[in-house]
């Protein structure tokens, strides 16, 4: 029955067509609207099969004459999906609603090079301005957090810090694993935090070899292609204003630690009792501790040179006697009163305020166009005094000098001001180390012996520096500093000034040729200043110290390009399209560094070098890195059905010796739009698009960072002896050192069903790296113990799936779901043949056949119930309590790797009339995580160092608790708590990444206020994490390990967006 109806409809439409053909010309009017119902100006409306068409006016209206035999309009607008509309009734005005091209379609045009997803043969994911707007982000990288094939770290909590990126698995050992950043067609070497997300028109991830090989030699780790906004044709200037403000707060709960002073006294007492028992000071575990041993305890933990939080009979800290602690059980005398207890975390943390304002204006006509923007950010961190401020400004102008000559300029200036603190893992001035590890007996503020806070002459509470002999207090943890006071009194500031300008001249000549010359100048000035005050802490001994450095990075890229797009003979009809590009570019980075250290201040109000009396050294250096590239690139397509791409390039880098500095790389790709074939016509009503594609290519990598600018050169460094110049051996070099290579095979299918209501793609890839650059270790007795070499090969292979579907689509309500899944497997395939085994750190192994970052650890075998010793299982299956034996390579085991089996994101967007709600979930399944923070909190051997422990440690072995789950508590027990699989947890997680609720004001309201568009929104980022252990951010690093660094934060933002 259905079939019959369809057939009938088909006949009817043929009939209509025939009747239309009978007329000569028909006038069609219509309006093109965006997804929120606003007219879109400047949209191209073409009549399919002809060269004629029209552009929409400022309100999105168009009018055109339809010639006989043509009734299909092709509507194209950047940022929206291309639409074909059939005009069935020309007398009725058409209303065309455009869909934003966040799915897969939409051409990205970058300075003469086009990535058209339709003809593309590789794998590209694109995020457009529309998606970026939904996320309350300061850093543009975060916009990629729902893209298949990319992995991001959480990026830490310091406002302005950059998350790290990994495309299709880790591909290098030493070389930079991050993708190459290309902004407006030119490699960008600045910080990602310097880019204002609201200036970005689109951000694309190029994952396969054909796409990425065009953007510099260094694309083997993938390419992130950022295209900034430009002006478009319009009758009047378009002005956009957005203002957002909101809050940042701690996203990660604290681990459960012993936070009760009495409990802490008891735990340290038990450690001491075990020590006394083991060393023969008591013969039975239940005996009371003799007074000389109790004396040690008294000295170390309470009274003596420690802290006593309790008072017995109102005597206060000093008068209290041993009676405070029961010498058998370690319990605090029930008559004793707690005098004080202060928690450090609340003193350090805050709910930060975050503000962001952007204004932009743009316009254009046939002769020229422009885009201008100003942006301001002020982000407070969740730690007191940490902040990030940014001012950005951008101007982009294109001018058509003559019909065949175009010139343009893009200028971007940024000022950034960051205030932070050290996050060095075990520094007492790292607030997170202190907050997590500080024993609960130590107060933030100075207390007298009766437990009262001591106030200074100005009435403010004094801080406790932990060295107050007057009150007989000596903190075991970070004496002579106080992180709460240090955050206030010390200063750790980065001020950065960035400038980037691109100028170009492009001309057409000899009919089919285009020549283009462009010059990009980047200038980054990074100023770092670390001041440590003269009153306490590390700066005290030298009366305050200032350490400043200025690093100026000047980077130019000069590029010449010729493109030939023939239009004669076989190319005239449009069935064959060919483009050939020749390209040459020089890139020179010059880095100039100045530094100074001075000490000896007279007063804490002075914090600059001139106020300091003592010169503690200064220095300067200049480094240069040069890269030169030649590229030939061809694309061909036949009837929009068959696509071919090929490139060949030759790149030279100054990092390598003259005999090895050039590398040759190439790529080929092919695509077939199957759905355009005639034999597929029967499926066209449900299968709107089907494309198969494959590509293969080889790319190079040389980015070893600033430590290896002269990687090949054996050299000495300067080490004067007092004032006499001196050299010391620095490193071996090698003339053979050469480019790391990477090949990438990619095959995939792009599909669209039901008139592209469901779209998506599946990709399979194999990405192999060879000649991997790495520091190959050798015996330290040879003096240096390492040499940079091309050591081995590695393979990443995987599958990626992206599906986007309008699950429900009614007049008022739509439900769109977008799913990204990726699976990647990493394996070392060669390590100088088979033999080389490297232990990059105490917990991992690098060896043929294993994934990078594979955990290699002693196997925990529980607790010896007799002695409470920690046991590990040896290779022969027996247990040992000797960690030196357990940690020998022959006894360690492979314990899995940090890489998840599946990673993904799911975004659900619900729209009802003008209200839209989207929820993004990120997740990963599988992989291991080494919880070093937890290990730190499980160290009995660090007893009496003033640290606290995880609450788990309560179930430790004691003579009374012999079937405990954890080994004996003891003192100086190096053989307890060593690295083992005891500290490995699962990396699986589910995170509510982002929730966005927005309301677009109806047009009829806006007309009165003369607004083009207006919307309000509330958005939350980093909403909630479900993971294996409370307080662990499993996304903190790719390699599955953590340190006590800046916790990530949750953001809740409220905002208004106006279009004038």
């Amino acid at each position, binding site marked *: 029955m259905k079939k019959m109806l369809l057939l009938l409809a088909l006949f009817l439409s043929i009939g209509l067509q025939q009747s239309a053909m009978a007329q000569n010309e028909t006038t069609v009017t219509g309006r093109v609207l965006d997804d929120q119902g606003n007219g879109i100006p400047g949209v191209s409306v073409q009549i399919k099969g002809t060269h004629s068409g029209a552009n929409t006016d400022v309100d999105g209206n168009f009018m055109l004459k339809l010639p006989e035999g043509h009734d299909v309009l092709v509507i194209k607008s950047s940022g929206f999906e291309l639409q074909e509309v059939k005009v069935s009734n020309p007398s009725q005005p058409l209303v065309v609603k455009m869909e934003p091209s966040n799915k897969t379609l939409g051409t990205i045009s970058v300075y003469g090079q086009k990535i058209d997803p339709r003809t593309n043969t590789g794998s590209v994911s694109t995020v457009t301005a529309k998606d970026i707007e939904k996320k309350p982000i300061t850093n543009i990288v975060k916009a990629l957090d729902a893209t298949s094939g990319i992995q991001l770290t959480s990026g830490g909590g310091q406002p302005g810090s950059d998350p790290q990126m990994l495309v299709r698995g880790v591909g290098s050992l030493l070389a930079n694993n991050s993708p190459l950043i290309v902004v407006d067609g030119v490699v960008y070497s600045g910080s990602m935090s310097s880019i204002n997300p609201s200036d970005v028109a689109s951000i694309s991830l190029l994952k396969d070899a054909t796409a990425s090989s065009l953007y510099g030699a260094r694309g083997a780790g993938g390419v992130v292609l950022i295209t900034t906004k430009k002006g478009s044709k319009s009758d009047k200037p378009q002005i956009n204003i957005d203002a957002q403000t909101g809050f940042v707060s701690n996203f990660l709960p604290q681990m459960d630690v012993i936070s009760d002073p009495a409990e802490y006294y008891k735990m340290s007492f038990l450690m001491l009792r075990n020590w006394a028992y083991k060393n023969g000071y008591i013969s039975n575990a239940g005996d009371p501790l003799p007074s*000389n041993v109790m004396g*040690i305890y008294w*000295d*170390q933990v309470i009274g003596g*040179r420690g802290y006593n939080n309790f008072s017995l009979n109102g005597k206060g800290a000093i008068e209290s006697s041993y009676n405070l602690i029961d010498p058998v059980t370690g319990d605090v005398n029930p008559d004793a009163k707690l005098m004080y207890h202060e928690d450090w975390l609340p003193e350090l943390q805050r709910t930060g305020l975050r503000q962001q304002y952007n204004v932009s204006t743009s316009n254009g006509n046939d002769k020229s166009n422009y885009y201008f923007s100003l942006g301001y950010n002020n982000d407070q961190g969740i730690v007191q005094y940490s902040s990030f401020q940014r001012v950005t400004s951008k101007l982009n102008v294109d001018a058509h000098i*003559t019909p065949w000559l175009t010139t343009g300029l893009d200028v971007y200036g940024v000022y950034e001001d960051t205030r932070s603190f050290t996050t060095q893992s075990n520094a007492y001035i790292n607030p997170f180390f202190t907050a997590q590890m500080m024993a609960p007996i130590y107060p933030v503020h100075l207390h007298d012996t009766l437990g009262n806070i001591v106030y200074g002459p100005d009435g403010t509470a004094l801080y406790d520096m*932990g*060295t107050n002999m007057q009150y007989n207090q000596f903190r075991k943890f*970070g004496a002579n500093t106080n992180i709460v006071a240090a955050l206030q009194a010390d200063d750790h500031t980065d001020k950065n000034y960035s400038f980037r300008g691109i100028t170009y001249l492009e*001309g*057409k000549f000899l009919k089919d*040729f285009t*020549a283009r010359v462009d010059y990009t100048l980047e200038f980054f000035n990074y100023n770092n200043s670390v001041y440590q005050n003269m009153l306490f802490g*590390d700066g*005290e*001994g*030298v009366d305050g110290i200032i350490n400043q450095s200025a690093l100026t990075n000047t980077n130019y890229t*000069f590029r*010449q390009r010729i493109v030939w797009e023939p239009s004669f003979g076989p190319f005239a009809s449009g069935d064959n399209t060919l483009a050939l590009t020749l390209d*040459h570019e*020089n890139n020179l980075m010059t880095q100039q560094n100045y530094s100074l250290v001075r*000490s000896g201040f007279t007063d804490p109000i002075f914090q600059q070098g001139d106020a300091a009396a003592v010169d*503690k050294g*200064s220095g300067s*250096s200049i*480094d240069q890195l040069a890269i*030169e590239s030649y590229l030939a690139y061809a694309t061909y397509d036949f009837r929009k059905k068959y696509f071919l791409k090929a490139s060949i390039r030759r790149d030279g*880098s*100054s990092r390598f010796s*003259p005999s090895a*500095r050039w590398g040759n790389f190439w790529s080929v790709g092919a695509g077939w739009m199957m759905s355009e074939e005639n034999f597929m016509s029967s499926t066209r009503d449900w299968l709107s698009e089907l494309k198969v594609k494959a590509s293969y290519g080889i790319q190079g990598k040389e980015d070893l960072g600033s430590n290896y600018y*002269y990687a090949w*050169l*054996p050299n*000495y*460094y*300067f*080490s004067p*002896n*007092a*004032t*006499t110049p*001196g*050299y*010391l*051996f620095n490193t*071996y070099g090698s003339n053979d050192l050469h480019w790391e290579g990477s090949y990438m095979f990619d095959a995939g299918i792009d599909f669209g069903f039901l008139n592209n209501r469901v779209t998506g793609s599946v990709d399979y890839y194999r990405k192999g790296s060879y000649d991997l650059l790495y520091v190959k*270790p*050798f*015996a*330290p*007795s*040879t*003096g*240096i*113990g390492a040499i940079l070499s091309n050591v081995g090969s590695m393979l990443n292979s995987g599958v990626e799936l992206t599906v986007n579907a309008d699950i429900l689509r009614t007049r008022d309500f739509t439900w769109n779901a977008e799913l990204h899944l990726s699976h990647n497997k990493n394996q070392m395939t060669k390590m100088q043949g088979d033999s080389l*085994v490297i232990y990059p750190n105490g917990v991992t192994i690098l060896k043929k056949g294993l994934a990078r970052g594979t955990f290699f650890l002693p196997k925990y075998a529980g607790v010896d119930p007799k002695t409470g010793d920690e046991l590990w299982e040896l290779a022969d299956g027996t247990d040992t309590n000797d960690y*030196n034996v357990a940690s020998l390579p022959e006894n360690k085991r492979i314990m899995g790797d940090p890489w998840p089996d599946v990673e993904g994101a799911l975004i659900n967007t619900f729209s009802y009339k003008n209200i839209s709600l989207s929820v993004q979930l990120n997740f990963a399944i599988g992989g291991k995580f080494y919880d070093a923070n937890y290990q730190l909190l499980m160290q009995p051997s660090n007893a009496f*160092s003033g640290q606290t422990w995880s609450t788990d440690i309560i179930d430790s072995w004691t003579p009374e608790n012999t079937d405990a789950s954890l080994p004996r508590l003891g003192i*100086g027990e190096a053989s307890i708590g060593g690295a083992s699989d005891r500290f490995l947890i699962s990396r699986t997680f589910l995170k509510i990444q982002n929730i966005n609720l927005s309301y677009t004001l109806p047009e009829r309201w806006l007309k009165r206020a003369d607004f083009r568009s207006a919307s309000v929104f509330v958005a939350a980022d980093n909403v909630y994490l479900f993971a294996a252990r409370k307080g662990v951010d499993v996304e903190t690093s790719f390699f599955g390990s953590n340190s006590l660094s800046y916790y990530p934060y949750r953001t809740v933002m409220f905002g208004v967006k106006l279009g004038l």
Partner: protein
Amino acid sequence: MKTFSRILLFSTSALLLGMGACKKSFLDRYPSDRVPLEDAFKTTTGCRAALEGMHSLMYKASDDDNFGQMSINLINDLMGEDMVMHDAGAGWFTNYVDYTTPRNGGAYIWSYYYQFVNNANELLAHIDNATGPQSEKDNIKGQVYFYLAYAYYNLSLYYQHSYMVDSTALGVPIYHAVTQEGGPRAPLTQLYKEITDDLDKAVSLLDPANGAPQRANKSEIDIDVVHGLYARVALVMQRWRLADQMAGLARQNYPYMSTKELLSGFNNWQNSSWIWGSHITEDQTNHVWSFISHMDPTSGGYAEIGGQKLINKTLFNLIPHDSNSAAGYDIRYQWWAKGDQDPYFKFSQKKFRIQNPGTFSLDVCYMRSEEMGFIQAEAKAHFDIPGAQAQLEEIMKIRNPNYSAASFTSQAALLHEIWHQRRIELWGEGFRYSDLQRCAAIPEASSSDYSGFLFYQGLHRENSGGQDALFGNYKTIADPVANTFLFRISGGEINYNPNIVQNP
């Protein structure tokens, strides 16, 4: 229009070609703060700079507890019983006090001395091809051979029992050329042959009689420094006459310091008795990563926050300190605090003091004539008892005018007295652990029936003071040749040198 197009085409192509033509120079880039190896040794000026670099390695700081020879001196003393840490402080060095770092294969000492070997071999490989006067080459080579001997001798102290315990035991790998291939451990006999051969070469090359110039300052190696190291080596090898002779040569130009100098803080290389030392300028010290930060509580460094170094209480109380008594008053009593007096804790050291408060520039001493005097006394005690008594009295009378060695008539009693005074004298200068190791091979050290402070073979800390704040202070190793005395070789060497053998 067409003309213009052609111009554009032409200029673009010209640019392309132009770039191609100059590509060689475009990609040649050299560092501004590194010296390419091929340039470093072109002239003797470069070779001299490479030698100065080795002098700077003596005090190069890379971490809070890694600041060259002075940090190893601290390790040496903290692993004995005479230096006691008041408290863990920020935790630095405590893992040496309880022997965990040495037994876990801490890498610092191993890789530190092998840096000398590597730099020395690189220099020796190139110096003959450098342009410059032969006398300059000889002087540099003499100092380089000294550093080779110095490095191997120091390594032998930590990675094997003393030479005379078992001279066939495995020492450490010897390298005669720069290599990336780890070598096997040479037996101590071979290692000490290497050391004495290198010292012989250094003596000959640095002998003023052969035309060696006078050194510029005390950081350079001259023949006196070589003789001093030779004396240390001979003492370990129990070649008593050689030790006496070498020590005598070493100290002949360096009169013993006066009482004033003894109390002046050990921070100035103008001191008459210093044979070898370094001047550390303000910009070459990372202030908390320094010897004085760990020693002087007035410096604002680690000593202030609990890491103060105290003297063993028993040893301290044995220093005569009553000028009215027959024993007299030994001025060295003032090297330590008698009671708690802010910022010093009781028994805290005051021997080493900061030179200029507020700054960390400092001179440090690696060898002084009093040590040579003690070597002579100890050596002579084996063949010339009156000579040994005289040697000892010569030093001691400066410290305590009442002092007399006349009562120590037996060899054993005299040796015990010499060792006892040596412990007090060289406290904090990096000798105690290696003296314990060395005395394991001296029978006289095992007897314990002498009056005064007992000299033990093996480590007995429970008798050594009762400053109990640090748990490592309780360590006891009763067997003088116990394996637990030995440093184990670091994991990096074990992992990447197939020829190495680990210590038990």
